[in-house]
């Protein structure tokens, strides 16, 4: 049966009433309903829909007409109530973002004309092209993307250098620019230490330790892991070093590098000797024996951080930062249990573990299978972030599965005495990796205990109190599961070694004056670089949307470029576009 409600002099526009009709037509027991203003044309529509009633004759163009078909008279009041509620609550909740999202580079630059940093995280094959565009627009580049060729890397870095810009990366996972965390990064207190690093987790380990020691970092400029290779020649690192030399708030410069090419290393050190500021260096794998002039040389990442903090605070530099008391009481192992199995999500942390193990075991650098940093005498250190483990799978900083599989296998191996691992916190990492690993660790421990063995789990948590994850909570969770948690990777590795009765041969380092030649270096920097290090970056974020989060939170400005392959990846169309765009008569 048809019922008519006429709300006199109650005008709403037609779109609104169509939405209202949709909203009330879901009321159960209402066969059909239409809400319209009483214009002649609308009355025709109502009659075409079989909803015409005589009451409508009196309704005018400013009267709202509600006609419903229902067998239940009570529904009329329900509908009227629903209509009133709808009309009273028309405001649409705002889903506002703190940044704009665009779909082209041009639009990004129009939206943020003063942008000076492109953060690129698109698939490797497209990354170089985006970096070119960024440089052409006068932007510095932070290139998170990997799988960029040496040729492209060199070309881009030379182009940037010529333009007075910086290319951080490719494969640059982490960075801090003017206190703003970029990409997969820990939140570190600001201070007077400036870092240049050719190692992502190396930077993370050093910055987090600095932070927990009460120091602070103003910049951590990543260069990409290949910057100190002979093919690239440290183009980025040298420009970044000069930038920090010119940056007044930076009082200590800290250099972190994976094993470099010899001549490139020497070139970098030559530049460092010409600086006015004290410098701490770590070239992973090298075991320095002294500090010389303004250059302090570290063996471990922890030592790097500690020397940096002491320099930054004006403290005296100690002879040895590495030897710490890490003894574990009452170790109970079977005679077969002699090996350490290290499963790292951070490549440089794994490398450091392999270095310390080799040192303690007096091993020559041997060949390890792909994906392993060390395999000797039953010991294993695996870099689970290596491509061979991450193809088609999430990175171990995000997903615990690969690591759990390795841990289970290690526990089945009767020679395993210690399982060593890292938990890396910060933006981009799992929100609760300790919690995710916990059930598996507990299960593995109880399984081996049932077989009458003890396997020791030793871990380090790389993070700060300010990180999005709760640093203390992560430590506590691991400790409750019986994991021995140490403050640094250095200490964790030494703990593992001590469990099987080994120690590292530490060197006490003296400070000596540098007596060699100091080259005359041009230490001046471009206005663009000066701006990059003296102000909060204005970011065009190309690729992963989540990278906007820390920038916004820590006071940077960002426009997100929701990047897609040109022409949706249609190669023929991309080629035609390219031809048309570069056409000239």
């Amino acid at each position, binding site marked *: 049966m048809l019922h008519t409600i006429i709300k006199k002099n109650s005008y709403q*526009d037609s*779109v*609104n009433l*169509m*939405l209202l*009709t*949709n909203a009330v*037509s879901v009321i159960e027991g209402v066969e*059909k*309903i*239409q809400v319209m203003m009483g214009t*002649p*044309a609308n009355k*025709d*529509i109502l009659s*075409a*829909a*079989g*909803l015409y009633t005589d009451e409508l004759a009196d309704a005018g163009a400013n009267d709202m007409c509600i006609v419903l078909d229902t067998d239940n008279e009570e529904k009329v009041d329900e509908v009227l109530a629903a209509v009133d509620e709808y009309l009273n609550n028309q405001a*649409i909740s*705002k*889903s*506002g973002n703190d940044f*704009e999202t*665009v*779909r*082209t580079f041009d*639009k990004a630059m129009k939206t943020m004309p003063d942008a000076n940093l492109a953060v690129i995280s698109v698939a490797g094959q497209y990354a170089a092209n985006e970096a070119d565009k960024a440089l052409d627009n006068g932007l510095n580049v932070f290139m998170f993307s990997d799988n960029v060729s040496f040729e492209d890397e060199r070309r881009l870095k030379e182009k940037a250098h010529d333009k007075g810009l910086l290319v951080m990366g490719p494969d640059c996972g982490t960075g801090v620019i003017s206190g703003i965390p970029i990409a997969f990064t820990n939140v570190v207190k600001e201070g007077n230490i400036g870092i240049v690093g050719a190692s992502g987790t190396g930077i993370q380990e050093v910055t987090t330790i600095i932070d927990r020691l009460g120091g602070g970092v103003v910049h951590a400029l990543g260069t990409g892991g290949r910057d100190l290779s002979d093919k690239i020649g440290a183009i980025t690192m040298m420009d970044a070093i000069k930038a920090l030399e010119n940056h007044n708030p930076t009082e200590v410069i800290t250099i972190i590098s994976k094993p470099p090419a010899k001549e490139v290393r020497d070139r970098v050190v030559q530049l460092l000797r010409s600086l006015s500021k004290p410098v701490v260096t770590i070239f992973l794998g090298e075991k320095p024996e002294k500090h010389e002039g303004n250059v302090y040389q570290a063996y471990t990442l922890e030592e790097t951080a500690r020397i940096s903090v002491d320099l930054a605070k004006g403290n005296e530099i100690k002879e040895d930062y590495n030897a710490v008391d890490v003894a574990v009481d009452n170790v109970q192992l079977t005679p077969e249990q002699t090996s350490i199995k290290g499963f790292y999500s951070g490549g440089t942390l794994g490398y450091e573990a392999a270095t310390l193990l080799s040192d303690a075991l007096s091993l020559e650098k041997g060949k390890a299978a792909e994906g392993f940093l060390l395999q000797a005498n039953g010991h294993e250190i695996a870099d689970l972030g290596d491509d061979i483990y991450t193809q088609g799978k999430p990175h171990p900083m995000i997903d615990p599965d690969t690591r759990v599989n390795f841990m289970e296998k290690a526990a089945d191996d009767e020679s395993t005495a210690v399982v060593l691992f890292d938990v890396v916190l910060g933006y981009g990492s799992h929100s609760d990796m300790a919690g995710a690993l916990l059930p598996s660790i507990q299960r593995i421990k109880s399984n081996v205990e049932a077989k009458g063995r003890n396997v020791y789990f030793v871990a380090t948590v790389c993070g700060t109190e300010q990180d999005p994850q709760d640093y203390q909570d992560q430590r506590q969770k691991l400790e409750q599961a019986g994991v021995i948690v140490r403050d640094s990777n250095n200490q964790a590795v030494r703990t593992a070694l001590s469990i099987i009765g080994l120690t590292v041969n530490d060197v006490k380092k003296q400070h000596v004056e540098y007596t060699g030649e100091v080259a005359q270096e041009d230490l001046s920097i471009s206005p663009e670089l000066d701006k990059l290090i003296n102000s909060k970056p204005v970011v065009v974020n190309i690729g992963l949307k989540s990278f906007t989060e820390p920038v916004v939170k820590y006071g940077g400005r960002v426009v997100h470029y929701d990047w*897609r392959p*040109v*022409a*949706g990846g*249609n190669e023929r*169309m991309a080629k*035609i*576009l390219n*031809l*048309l*765009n570069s*056409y*000239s*008569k």
Partner: protein
Amino acid sequence: MNYNTIDEANRAVLDKIVGSQPFLVDVVPAKSVISELNNGKVILHAGPPIKWEDMTGPMQGSCVGAALFEEWADNEDDARNMLANGEVEFIPCHHVNAVGPMGGITTANFPVFVVENRSEGNEAYCIMNEGIGKVLRFGAFSEEVINRLIWMRDVLGPTLSKALKIKGDGLNLNVMIAKAITMGDEFHQRNIAASLIFLKEVAPLIVQIEGLSDKDQQDVLQFLADTDQFFLNVMMAASKAVMDGARKVQDGTVVTAMCRNGKDFGIRISGMGDQWFTAPVNTPQGLFFTGYSQEDANTDIGDSAITETIGVGGFAMIAAPGVTRFVGAGGFDDALKTSNEMLEICIDQNPNWAIPTWDFQGACLGIDARKVVETGIEPVINTGIAHKQAGLGQIGAGTVRAPLACFEKAIEAYAEKLGLI
């Protein structure tokens, strides 16, 4: 190619758009300005070329209505036979300097707006809006529909013509558009402000017409006052005039027309002249009157996407945030998002048409077919939705996207023309 680069050519097209001067100068019988309509039985239709048997229900219904209106037949069956047996020639409106809404059906005795683009000296034509409800453009052809068309032919058209003659130099449409865009119109789904401005301009002229009966005067003013979308057809003619003037630059990748015939979506680009690049049309999504649903919706139809081509309609959603609600429970942010997205495929913004709700940024200007292909962002079109059966008329309104394939074909053809592939 007369320009050094495609960007330069496109700039030349844009300069002509921005510099255009469309004036509404007259309302005349279509046959007096479109000579093709004088050669036997000819029907103009919306979209790229289409055969009778491929037309969807509403367009066929409109053709039946036109045959009845022109008195080629006096019943539906005879009309359909005549339309099917090849006796009637079909020509796209776009081929004769015209555009038509929905079916776009236009025959000799339809009164049409005449818009003169004084910067380029060209003209464009469009039939007048019939109002809402049962109307020819949605395929209705009942007696009521035909009677209204006869009244428009005999009273409305001549009256507006006389009014415009009293005005003398025509109505400056750029000015009216610029005003209305600040009053919440986007000129496709919403034209109420522009229609009122139109009424404001012509009412004082209409009352000056000598010999106009009181009844006719009352009927005309009432019709204009009642017809919220009256200006849509003026806007279409203006857009056509401007885009045709601009495409005298025969280079570049600026989209100069978008239209649909219910089967195909067709576009033209500046560098490829009159050639159509087509792909199957999509079906609009939106809100429906009671008793109708998405299943009843006809495929996309009409030349009205000429408004999006010039940078308004769906592209100017931000000027008319209320219209956004046709795409669901959209609000101001969605309107903003839509216009911002469309800006990504346009080359510039039109300083003549500043949009207050967009911080006075100009309306979108110049869709670049290259950008559409590069980003995969398909132009959004605000549109009425016809019932797929003839005669049932409008059943809702919503939005629809132009298919990407048209743009891919266009740039491919242009690259070929330039000898690049």
